[in-house]
């Protein structure tokens, strides 16, 4: 028995050795081999990063009018990890804040994506009464906080909405995009980003740099102490070359009509006006647009969400003729003195191409062809040149190409050629398609921005400028202004005589030509050209009432102009959709804009250089 006991005790001792050995191996496994992993985990437990929002840069027009600012306001945030009973809290908050089901849905979606100690925005722009009621009950609502937060505000509402754009909450899609471009870290703790217009294109400068407070927290999320602080860096203010007074004037001139207008400096390319109508109120988009408004805007036949100046493509109609004239001279296909007989139509084979004036214009030379807008002259010219020669001599004006304006999402449009048609449709170019090209119809489709820039190229004697909306950045703290360097204008190499000839013709348009009535009595000389573009068809799925169809099948009214003709300070192009004859709708708006820039503004001491 005693020996047996001794043996058993020894075996037990060996087993104890073995089991304790396992423990020590386990310690070594955790504390030596995997120490790094666990040290990181412990550190992540301990340290929380609280983002400090950077004030977003403000946006000013060329005369200091503020177009986008930050309003301090109260908002409610919830930290779901600390909310004991989230549904109950939400029920109480729904009562106080009269939350819509959409707002609650939106909150729950962002809460599901948030990390453990993140606060999630529930509602911003609280009224004083709501804040007062909330503060009284806040003790019964664990994890709910009322914060003063900066909110983006666009004080002029829908005015210039396409130009300014708006910011919006970072969506899951944005997050994925940021992660793919490895910029997610720049947006850690950031709730909003620029989504459209200048707000998007200049996001990087406007955003600033989010700051951080590194804090030590307990398991229950209580702050123990601050470990480090990196202050936020404010975003840069943007100074636009836009004359906001002009913007509003033009918008008012459009009224309920649809269209787009771009005015810029032929010397520098700085943009004075960039209008797309109808517009929408970007303030509704800052914290997520509600679905009713979204449906209303996106389903409207007026397409208020479409930036017509940047993305709308239109046939230029007769505004194309001055460019065709220069192309004709440059290619040697016409001399200024060459004339044709205009009987009111042009025959190609058995097909008759009608002039807009049935009795014709008689004997027409190059200058007259612009002043009276002879279609026949250009039908014949186009056929004589052929589509590819036209393409070759027109493309220097930048038609069918992006202008490189400092706004994202620009459309390129189409400047047709036989090669383009083959690529696009797999078919040969037909000569029968060429005459319409000459009068700015057919496959031609350009943005108003392209048209304005090309007009500027005539105005400045043959130089292609790059349109630019933002003139400078300004540091909000130091006030230091940094001008954005301009791309040098591109010399197109046209003979100045040809350009001057066309300029003269365009001045003639407003003396004895198609829009002479509109510009009667201006103290400055205006060079211009009317355009009327046929609307071919409507989309197949669009269902309109018979009355509306009739209205929407009317021609687009276009106009290009620059003034003063002898030393052009502004060049512009505009379209009024379904506005009919060019001189009827578009030219009067151009007149208002030019009067404003060249008479009203100088009277206020605001003279264009």
């Amino acid at each position, binding site marked *: 028995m005693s020996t047996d*006991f001794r043996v*058993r005790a020894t075996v*037990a001792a060996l087993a104890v050795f073995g089991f304790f050995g396992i423990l020590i191996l386990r310690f070594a496994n955790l*504390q030596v081999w995997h120490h790094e992993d666990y040290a990181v985990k*412990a550190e992540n437990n301990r340290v929380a990063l609280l983002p400090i929002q950077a004030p977003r840069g403000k946006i000013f027009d060329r005369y200091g009018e503020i177009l986008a600012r930050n309003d301090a306001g109260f908002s409610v945030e919830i930290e779901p990890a600390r909310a004991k009973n989230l549904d109950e809290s939400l029920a109480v908050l729904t009562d106080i804040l009269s939350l819509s089901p959409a707002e609650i849905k939106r909150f729950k979606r962002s809460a599901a994506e948030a990390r453990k100690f993140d606060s999630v925005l529930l509602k911003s722009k609280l009224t004083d009464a709501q804040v007062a009621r909330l503060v009284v009950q806040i003790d019964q609502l664990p994890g709910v906080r009322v914060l003063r937060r900066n909110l983006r505000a666009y004080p002029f509402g829908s005015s210039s909405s396409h130009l300014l754009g708006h910011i919006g909450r970072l969506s899951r899609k944005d997050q994925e995009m940021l992660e793919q471009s490895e910029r997610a870290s720049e947006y850690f703790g950031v709730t909003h980003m620029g989504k459209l217009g200048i707000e998007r294109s200049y996001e990087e400068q406007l955003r600033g740099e989010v700051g951080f407070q590194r804090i030590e927290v307990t*398991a229950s999320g209580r702050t123990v102490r601050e470990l480090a602080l990196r202050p936020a860096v404010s975003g840069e203010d943007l100074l636009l070359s836009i004359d906001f007074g002009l913007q509003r004037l033009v918008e008012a001139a459009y009224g309920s009509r649809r269209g787009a207008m771009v005015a810029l400096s032929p010397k520098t390319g700085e943009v004075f006006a960039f209008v797309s109508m109808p517009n929408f109120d970007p303030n509704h988009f800052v914290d997520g647009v509600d679905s009713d408004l979204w449906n209303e805007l996106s389903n409207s036949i007026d397409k208020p969400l479409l930036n017509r100046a940047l993305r709308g493509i239109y046939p230029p109609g007769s505004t194309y003729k001055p460019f065709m004239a220069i192309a004709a001279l440059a290619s040697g296909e016409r001399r200024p003195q060459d004339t044709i007989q205009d009987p009111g139509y042009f025959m190609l084979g058995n097909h008759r191409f009608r002039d807009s004036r049935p009795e014709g214009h008689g004997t027409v030379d190059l200058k007259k062809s612009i002043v009276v807008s002879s279609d026949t002259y250009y039908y014949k010219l186009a056929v004589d040149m052929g589509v590819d020669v036209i393409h070759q001599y027109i493309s220097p004006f930048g038609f069918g190409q992006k202008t490189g304006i400092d706004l994202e999402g620009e459309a390129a449009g189409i400047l047709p050629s036989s090669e383009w048609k083959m690529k696009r449709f797999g078919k040969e170019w037909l000569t029968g398609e060429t005459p319409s090209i000459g009068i700015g119809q057919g496959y031609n489709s350009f943005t108003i921005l392209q048209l304005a820039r090309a007009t500027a190229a005539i105005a400045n004697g043959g130089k292609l400028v790059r349109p630019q909306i933002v003139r400078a950045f300004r540091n909000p703290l130091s006030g230091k202004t940094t001008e954005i360097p301009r791309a040098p204008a591109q010399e197109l190499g046209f003979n100045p005589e040809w350009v001057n000839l066309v300029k003269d013709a365009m001045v003639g348009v407003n003396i004895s030509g198609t829009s002479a009535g509109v510009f009667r009595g201006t103290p400055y000389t205006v060079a211009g050209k009317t355009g009327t573009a046929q609307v071919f068809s409507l989309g197949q799925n669009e269902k309109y009432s018979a009355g509306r169809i009739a209205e929407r099948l009317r021609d687009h009214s276009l106009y290009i102009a620059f003034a003063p003709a002898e030393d052009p300070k502004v060049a512009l192009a505009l379209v009024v959709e379904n506005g009919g004859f060019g001189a009827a709708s578009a030219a009067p708006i151009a007149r208002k804009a030019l009067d404003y820039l060249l008479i009203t503004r100088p009277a206020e001491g605001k003279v264009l250089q």
Partner: protein
Amino acid sequence: MNSANQRRAQTGWRALALWLRIRFFSLDQPLFWLMMAIFVLSLFAVYSASHDDPDRFINHLRNLAMSLTLMCVLSQIPSVQLQRAAIPLYITSLLLLVAVQFFGETSKGATRWLNIGITRIQPSEIMKIAMPMMLAWFIHRKEGLEGWRNWLAACLMLVVPTLFILKQPDLGTAVLVAASGTFVLYFAGISWRLLLWVSLAVLMLVILLITLGDAACAPDISWPGLREYQRQRICTLLNPMQDPLGKGFHILQSMIAVGSGGLVGKGWLQGTQTQLEFIPERATDFIFAGYAEEFGFIGATLVVILYLGVVLRGLWIAIGAPTIFSRLLSGSLSLMIFTYAFVNLGMVTGILPVVGVPLPFISYGGTAMVTLGIGLGLIFSIARDRSRVTQGFSLQR
């Protein structure tokens, strides 16, 4: 002038000193100093886990003093007297266990406590001592375990209280009580063959659990013989990441604390996991997590070495013990201390499921301190018998 008085006083002091020395040195010296070392570590550990409640450290000092006193007092009782206490103690605690079933107080879903007017007691805790004493005495009386009747009786003595405790339910205590009895039977002579088969079966079960864990832990499966919460504990152990903020939180945070300690630890009072309250039960069952975080691999290994010393010394004392009773009792109690330590450390480091077993002599808490103090006191008492036998004289008059 006062030399007579002085001498008398000196004699008095000397007598006291001599008496203390005899009493003191009569305790087994290696075991005593090992215990002291563990006590010192426990002071550091509990202090570090008490920043939110300063009273806790004071209470811990009181608990240590109580445990030490019990140890010293019990060490003075000859083991012959201990034998007499075996039956009454066992029967009393068995009756109390039955009483818990009917009159016990329920908290956190378990019925473990009995209110006896002046205080609340936990009868299962007494059983941890009563069980090995009873079995040791029984085998001592029968001079071994010959015949199936004796085996059956011994097994009943083991199984009945264990079942009562399992029913409370209290898995941790049931494991310890069953272990303490099993150790007695082991030392009394369970056949090696049976032992081998049981060990193999346990090993197979563990391997099965690890390989089939995912399937067996599917939510709609129940395991025979285990309650749902017990099944979940095992499943949580197999995969704590399944629910890192819920059921897996204890194990995960505890492993992070231990692992982040590294080789030498973050320094006393510098453990972020414990100081910032990421470790639940950080003063009691999970005290080792904070300790290992602050003292690192070296500190953790030191604790294991100290326990190893205590257990080996206990087994050494058992080998030299004069009677069957004292041999079986001290051997079983030594292995029980091992069990406490192994189950606790295994659970804190994530290799055993979470059961409520404290770290002996280090965790904050009076109950375990008293039970373990008594257990160690019994070992000290047996050690004294051994020294009497081996050294051939008694310091007792």
